[in-house]
């Protein structure tokens, strides 16, 4: 059954809410009354529930099955955390309330900050960034502020070829030139090439570790040492922290700044694309440049350090990144997650995530090309390439065929360093039975792609939609609904 658009079934006069009329004194709208129709159709409550319930059923979700998107860490979202985030003491407080009326909220931020610092072995954490890329920006701005504070005008940031696209975009957004660092054949940063490139113009290196090929950067400490020796700083993309939480502390590897995706490692729900939350941990060198606001423990309780109260010892803060204090709704969930797992559980998270990924890698390397199979164990994700598929068959075909097998596809065509990359991240919340079924499905699809089964190219057959035309969408973008007659007239 097709679900029509809201605009096709709603009416301007319909509503799903009863609003009490309030006797108004004379209006004080300064003559700005909105008179023309706005064009917002409404639905009664039963129709609203049905519209969105039906829409929801056209989605795939982690609650329905494996979601093996590499680098995205789609793991189970505990329902306890949803309950916690909705406690009125957290959900129903205003960001500008007097601080002594929100001590519990500040304590949540303080506790979470404490565990993030502990788990990463770093010195401090900025909690306000709203997502991973925002956290990257925060880290790079702190680096830039630190360099500027010592009068250093370095202009280049080095990024590995295999980095997330957000890395170069962030560096550019912060005003840096971006240069690539090559990779070795075994899928890691080429230390020699890096050392060669380091120089007085290099502000920082952005490394993802474990990297996007699913490998641990063995030379991380050497890289950091070299970077520091050259007067630059080390940014670590923490998107893959899930693989090492509780087992390795980035602080021990010489990292100066790293963002943490609370919606990845700490399992706050992705919600169809956000909200995320990207706190950034800092080394001692960068701590004093961290953005406002932050929470400090004082003799009287918890203080919120904002512009006015920053005072002497925070005078070097590079400023403010968001209107308020960050993603409180994610902090409560992440704190509940950390406390639920505890010291033993978090370590088990990393172990099971890595074990699951290696299990997939070793169970499929005979049928799919695994370019780094010989580079040692993978971490939390396994990478395959399209080498060996029949002529004309692509990673896309495999992905769409997996949909028909009842799975969300893996990450496709990323990282760019592997041709037709397929990046599979099962996460630790999948059972062996589920992995075995998935391996069976992917094996069967891979065999069909190697055999040149033309039917694959039409997949998916059993999804709410067949392949969608993205070129058409981009050529003449239709981003909002218009009444059919208007839409026709516009053509």
């Amino acid at each position, binding site marked *: 059954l097709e679900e029509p658009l809201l*605009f096709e079934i709603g009416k301007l006069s319909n509503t799903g809410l009863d609003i009490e009329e309030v006797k*108004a004194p004379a209006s004080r709208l300064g*003559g*700005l009354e*909105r008179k023309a129709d*706005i064009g*917002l159709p409404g639905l009664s*409550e039963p129709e609203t529930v049905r*519209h*969105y319930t039906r829409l*929801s059923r*056209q*989605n*795939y979700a982690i609650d329905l099955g494996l979601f093996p998107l590499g680098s995205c860490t789609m793991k189970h979202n505990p329902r306890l955390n949803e309950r916690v985030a909705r*406690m009125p003491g957290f959900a129903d*407080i*205003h960001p*500008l309330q*007097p601080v002594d*009326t929100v001590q519990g909220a500040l304590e949540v931020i303080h506790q979470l900050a404490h*565990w993030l610092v502990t*788990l990463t072995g770093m010195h401090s954490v900025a909690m306000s960034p*709203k*997502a991973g*890329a*925002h956290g990257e920006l925060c880290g790079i701005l702190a680096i*830039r502020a630190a360099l500027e504070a010592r009068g250093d005008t370095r202009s280049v940031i080095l990024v590995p070829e295999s980095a*997330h*696209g957000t890395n170069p975009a962030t560096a*550019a*957004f912060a005003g840096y030139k*971006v240069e690539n660092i090559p990779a070795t054949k075994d899928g890691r940063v080429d230390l020699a090439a890096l050392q060669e490139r380091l120089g007085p113009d290099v502000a920082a290196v952005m490394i993802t570790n474990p990297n996007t090929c699913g490998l*641990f950067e063995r030379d*991380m400490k050497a890289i950091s040492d070299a970077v520091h020796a050259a007067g630059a700083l080390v940014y670590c993309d923490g998107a893959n922290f899930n693989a090492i939480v509780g087992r*390795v502390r980035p602080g021990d590897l010489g990292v100066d700044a790293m963002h943490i995706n609370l919606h990845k490692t700490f399992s706050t729900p*992705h*919600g*169809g694309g*956000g*909200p995320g939350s990207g706190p950034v941990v800092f080394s001692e060198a960068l701590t004093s440049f961290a953005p406002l606001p932050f929470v400090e423990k004082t003799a009287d309780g918890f203080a919120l350090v904002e*512009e006015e109260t920053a005072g002497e010892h925070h005078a070097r803060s*590079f400023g403010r990144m*968001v209107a*308020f204090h960050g993603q409180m709704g994610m902090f409560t969930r992440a704190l509940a997650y950390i*406390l639920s797992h505890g*010291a033993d*559980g978090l370590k088990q998270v990393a172990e099971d995530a890595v074990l699951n990924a290696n*299990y997939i*890698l070793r169970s499929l390397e005979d049928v799919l090309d695994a370019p780094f199979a010989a580079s040692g164990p993978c971490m939390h994700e396994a990478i395959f390439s399209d080498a060996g598929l029949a002529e004309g068959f692509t990673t896309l075909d495999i992905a769409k065929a997996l949909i028909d097998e009842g799975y969300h*596809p893996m990450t496709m065509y990323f990282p760019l360093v592997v041709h037709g990359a397929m990046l599979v991240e099962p996460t630790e*919340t999948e059972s062996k039975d589920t992995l075995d079924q998935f391996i069976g499905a992917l094996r069967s699809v891979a065999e069909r792609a190697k055999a040149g089964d033309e039917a694959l190219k*039409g997949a998916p057959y059993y999804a*709410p*939609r*067949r*392949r969608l035309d993205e070129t058409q969408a981009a050529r003449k973008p*239709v*981003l*909002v*609904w218009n009444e059919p007659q208007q839409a026709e007239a516009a053509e």
Partner: protein
Amino acid sequence: MRYLPLTPSDRQAMLAKVGAKTIDDLFADVPEAARLDGPIRDLPPHASEMAVERHMSRLAAKNQTAGDGPFFLGCGAYKHHVPATVDHIIQRGEFLTAYTPYQPEIAQGTLQMLFEFQTQVARLFGVDVANASMYDGSTACWEAITMARRVTKRAKAILSGGLHPHYVSVANTMAKFTGDHLVTATPTLTAEPDTADLIGQIDDDTSCVVVQYPDILGRIGDLSDLADACHAKKALLIAVVTEPVALGAIKSPGEMGADIVVGEGQSIGVGLQFGGPYLGLFGCSQKLVRQMPGRLCGETTDSEGKRGFVLTLSTREQHIRREKATSNICTNSGLCALAFSIHMTLLGEAGLRKLAAANHARACQAAERLSKVPGVELVSDAFFNEFTVKLSQEARPVVRALADRGVLAGVSLGRLFPEAAELANGLVVAVTETVTDEDIEALATGLQEALA
């Protein structure tokens, strides 16, 4: 452990398959020195759901909530009644636990919702198109400024003194690194917004003027002349809306000529949440669409000709363009956009207008009542659901004193503008449909006693 399905025997079987003796073998690439073998410092072992819930409940209980008593805070975050249906739907696993809709064939639920959301936002703002949401209002505001730079190829942005000071602060922070030149101002406790001043400052180097509507003091004024003045100099007018409910009662910025309208969508469907996650709204005119940042959902067809939706214009985005992207943004605020869209669907035009009318009526009642309190002076007579009063003494200690009586009286300008002594007596009072007659009376009485 309750979230981890592998059993010890599963682990053994899997280690055998991968050819490892122990799990440590899989971490062989980690240098010896960096391996943590002991437990995590101070962190207790895994805890039961009951224990964690208790811990979090105890922390929650230390906060005074907006529902605990009379409540008048606004300034960029508003307390509205969120219908139970909203939370019910956003908790459906198919919405809550889905990822970014990169595989559109199995993400039409999220995509159609985003398409509807974009349409709702564009219509509310009175502009042609809108994106699929951004982090929050403050970051959307900064993205609009950088977009204006890309469009106009000019780097000077003029920010109204009526713009939320935290939004100004975010822009200032970013501009330090990007080299944008920002002209900023502090508001004055006058009846009118600073439109006239802004018009006077526009020159041929101006990329944009950024004005908040209603402004940080709650004031509203016509933007048409300002838009004309911008356009005369080929600059863009950016309007910032932190209280979208207002647009159910007053003209949209788009109607008055704004080129880009951004806002904070928290008021509709999202709730207070101590400041986040919130919902950045971003709309603009059709001709600017290819410079618009953030995710966009567009209509297309599938291989059988059926209508469907996909993320589109991703060639602007970082995962394709890398360092040449329009923005480094990778995440939107999808679940908050869903909440907004559901709440807006429940309201519909008729409901939104009634809700806006109820807000304005309550605010007028409160303004009238507070005006009668000795030592309280109403700053402006044109507002929506929020207005500023000038007290006979500094507002900040007054707010503190009232909090102890259980009344959260509003936002003192001393909190927002710590360096502007001339604003210290200002108090911004927001009055939504959740405020009752008794609440208004409690505020009036409280102020009267505190100012006596």
